[in-house]
């Protein structure tokens, strides 16, 4: 059940609205600016790729957009809720109900089976019959036969498919993916990205993805480039807000 409806006044508003986002970190005696004046809007159901070189700030941006961290300046508004105004616990609740994640290194809990890994977010969001939903999703990603296998017994591609099933388990409104094919070979990576895009379409979720993979980036509705902490949208400069 969605407990956050009180902070979602307008379903027509953008899914994600970012204004003047700046992020700095202290390194010993110095302060590094990782992101500078980033602003963007992402509409519901859009798929967006953020591309950039290593160290350009794209993972930091993803963390801030997803509410895993809070910015030094500026605001992130996710589904109508201003993330920086929420407490840590409120952010956790927001993630539990509206956000899904796919990571480069899969991030499955090694002690749990594939099925249990997918059930975990469902249990955390208080869903009634988590196992049924988890089974359906694992069958959907083609792992119906591997339910009781632990991550160690699965290949990289299979692990990422479990992670995708987990990401969609709680019907997120928005999915954040951090280099989802980064640890996979080309063919497996392609299969995984096909699956990710297909599921995203089926679920109608918004997808925000950080990637090196140009093939994958090209399949998204919009592409952003990030360099030295500055974000640009080359193909649709008119959409970039200030």
């Amino acid at each position: 059940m969605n407990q956050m409806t009180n902070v979602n006044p307008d379903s027509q508003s953008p899914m994600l609205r970012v204004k003047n986002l700046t992020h700095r970190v202290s390194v010993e005696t110095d302060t590094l600016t990782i992101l500078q004046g980033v602003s963007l809007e992402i509409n519901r159901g859009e798929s967006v790729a953020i591309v950039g070189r290593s160290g350009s700030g794209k993972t930091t941006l993803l963390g801030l957009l997803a509410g895993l961290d809070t910015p030094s300046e500026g605001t992130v508004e996710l589904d109508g809720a201003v993330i920086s105004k929420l407490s840590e616990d409120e952010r956790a609740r927001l993630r539990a109900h509206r956000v899904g994640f796919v990571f480069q290194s899969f991030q499955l809990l090694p002690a749990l089976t594939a099925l249990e890994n997918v059930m975990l977010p469902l249990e955390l969001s208080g869903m009634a019959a988590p196992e049924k939903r988890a089974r359906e999703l694992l069958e959907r990603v083609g792992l119906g036969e591997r339910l009781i296998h632990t991550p160690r017994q699965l290949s990289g591609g299979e692990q990422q498919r479990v992670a995708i099933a987990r990401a969609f388990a709680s019907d997120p409104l928005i999915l954040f993916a951090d280099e989802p094919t980064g640890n996979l070979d080309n063919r497996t990576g392609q299969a995984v990205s096909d699956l990710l895009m297909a599921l995203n379409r089926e679920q109608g979720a918004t997808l925000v993805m950080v990637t090196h993979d140009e093939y994958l980036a090209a399949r998204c509705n919009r592409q952003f480039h990030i360099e030295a902490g500055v974000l640009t949208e080359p193909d649709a400069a008119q959409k970039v807000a200030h």
Partner: protein
Amino acid sequence: MAATKKLMSVRRDWRERDVRVVLAALMIAVATVATIALFASQLQRTLVTSASSFLAADRQLEAENGRPIPQTWLQEASDQGLATGRMVEFSTMVFGADNFQLVSVKAVSNEYPLRGDIEIQRDPSGARELVNQGPRPGEVWINPRLLRLLDLKIGESLEVGNLNLTVSGLLIREPDGGFQLSALAPRVMMHQDDVSATGVIQEGSRVEYVYLFAGDEASLESYYQWLRPRLEPGHEWKGVRDGETLSRSLERAEQFLLLGGSLAVMLAAVAVAVASRQYALSQRDAVALLKTLGLNGAGISGLYLGRLALWGVTGIVGGLLVAIPLYWLLIRMLSEVLERPVDFQLDPAALVPALLTALVSLFAFAYPPVRRLRNVPAMRVLRSQPGETGREALPDIIIAIVAVFGLVWMYAGELALVVSLLGGLVLLLGALGLAGWLLVATLRKVRGGGNAWRLALAGLYRHRRASLSQIAVFAMTLMLAATLILVRTSLLADWQAQLPGDAPNHFLINIAPEAVDDVDAFWRKRGQPLDKLYPMVRGRLTELNGQPVKETVSNGESINALNRELNLTWISTLPEDNEIVEGSWFDKNQKNGVSVEAELAGKLGLSLGDKLTFTIGSRRVTEAVTSIRTVQWDSMKPNFYMAFPPEGGLTDMPATWITSFYLPRDQKNALNEFSRRFPTVSVLEIDQVIERIQAIVRQVTQAIEAILALILAAALVVLAAVVSATLHDRQREGALLRTLGGRQSLLVRSTMLEFALLGGFAGLLGVVAAEAAVWALQFRMFDGAFQWHWHVVLSIPLVSAVVLALFGRWQLRPVLSVSPMLLLRRLE
């Protein structure tokens, strides 16, 4: 099973190495503390019963003044819930067949003995049996030697005064067979109701009335408070714990148990702290993920608190499952040593410290690092975040120190012990840290040796932070274990030295001066030479600096030594086991002065130069105190409060001689011949007493060994906890080295070398620290002289190096047994 429940399942946890270490440490802590507490409480009961049986009661009231105590005193004892019994002791001639003999009679009431058993034989060839009541009226039990001396047989009659009593048994051992000077002649035990019919006790006879009391400590104490103001000179209230031969050994055994228990608690706490910190570090990724998936801080805390609670229950149950059989084994052992059944009694009060230890270890040592997990940033799922700084752990360390303090205090109940152990530890950790840092700093510069050496030294340097904390924890663990080994060694050596196998077990008393040479020759001829012979003069201390001593000294009335005749002697050389604490021993030609025993001197407030006046018969001797010396009362040799120089104040006083010597059991028949040849010399047989003390010392020793084994197990768990802290890194490095072409043998040698260096160095630091701690403890608790234990100092670092090298080799197994690729993937 639901995923979140599974996250909290102990069965799943058990698959994680750090959790296994925490659980093992908890179990060992609970097992050790429970076993020690259960056994100590049982030992306490047993020892007090054994020792109480030296009195045949918990307390004795002796009336040496020849008058029975008022009936109302006994009535009051009964009213206060105490069991009472009575006996009368006197000397008389008895007649049997055609012979007569001076004997020492003990006439006992039905209640005798209140504690312990009497060992008798129904006939000389029959089996010995333990009974808990004296002879019935009309019957008498006699010492086997008396049977031979009088040429009597069982069933014949013995004439005591006007009464004929039937000899119905041989008296082998009395529970209160101490060695008071009154019990010189062979013993005869009869019923108290027969005493008046013998007509032996007349007005002015030398009779000692003894009253027995037994009950709980509180009632005994309250009764004594009631009784104390009523006691007269000549009355002596005796407890197990004061002035008894065993008391020092008992106290030390108790201290040792407490020390062992405290060390076990500390070791377990260290293991729990190290392993749970390691566990918490390993959980950071999982926590970040759970947060990303929407679990809030309270949820994280709840998850891990639930888990700690489960660990606690598992640790307690598991620990008790180990403790109870172990305790049962110890009880079996104890009952074998004592040759009598000992109750298997689970004292619930003794389990409380174990439960508290588990809870405190869990919440003061395991919880703090786990509590901080809720602060792990969710961002960690995307990028590794800086780890904890030492500052965050500072409050934990303070909580931990307070908790250890509290636990050890609760457990040992000795602030001095807590302060000396913990103070020592804190100081030592500082020193250890410094020494370790210096070692690592020099490692950077050390080069040379084969490849394995280079790799090992580089390994130590690379893991310098981990190496340093490992050295510190190891050194501390080894210090605690070594402390216990050292204390045990010196304790046992001390006990053995106190009562060697050939300790004198017979006294000869009342040897006339002209018979001394003959007596000496008699035993020399039989291969049992006498220990030193001492002249003995009986006299009272009556005046101090010209004033009546009882008036001059506060509490003078209650000092036993002032209420009775003292044994005075003269000697030229200081007995070996005496030690001068003030003044100096007599010069070669010195003819005046007196040397006083230190404890009595303290009670009387004597200082050098004080003038003591003794009344010996009708004569008076006054001498100044020239030295004060300590005496080993439990040495089983003649000991004296007052010693004069030869040709000093006592020379022309009527003296008899006293000596002690060792007589093996199979030569006891020689005593009969001796008694016939020297009828006036009294023989005091204390061999039974010594055997019983030795049995008790054996039993305590075994308990100590068992506890030491538990402590060493705790130390091994600490070892496992500490080594596992860097296991992951080491395995990864090993796999990488193999991938890069390192041979297995090189890997094995360098790892073993690295661990051996770590173990050897920690062992050296630990053992030196242990020697320092033992030095302090010797003074504080065990009042023994300190000496270096070279074999321990050398062997502990060696053993520690070897054990650690093997442990390192064992840790390396997965790196060697699977392909490097598979391993690297597993370690991802």
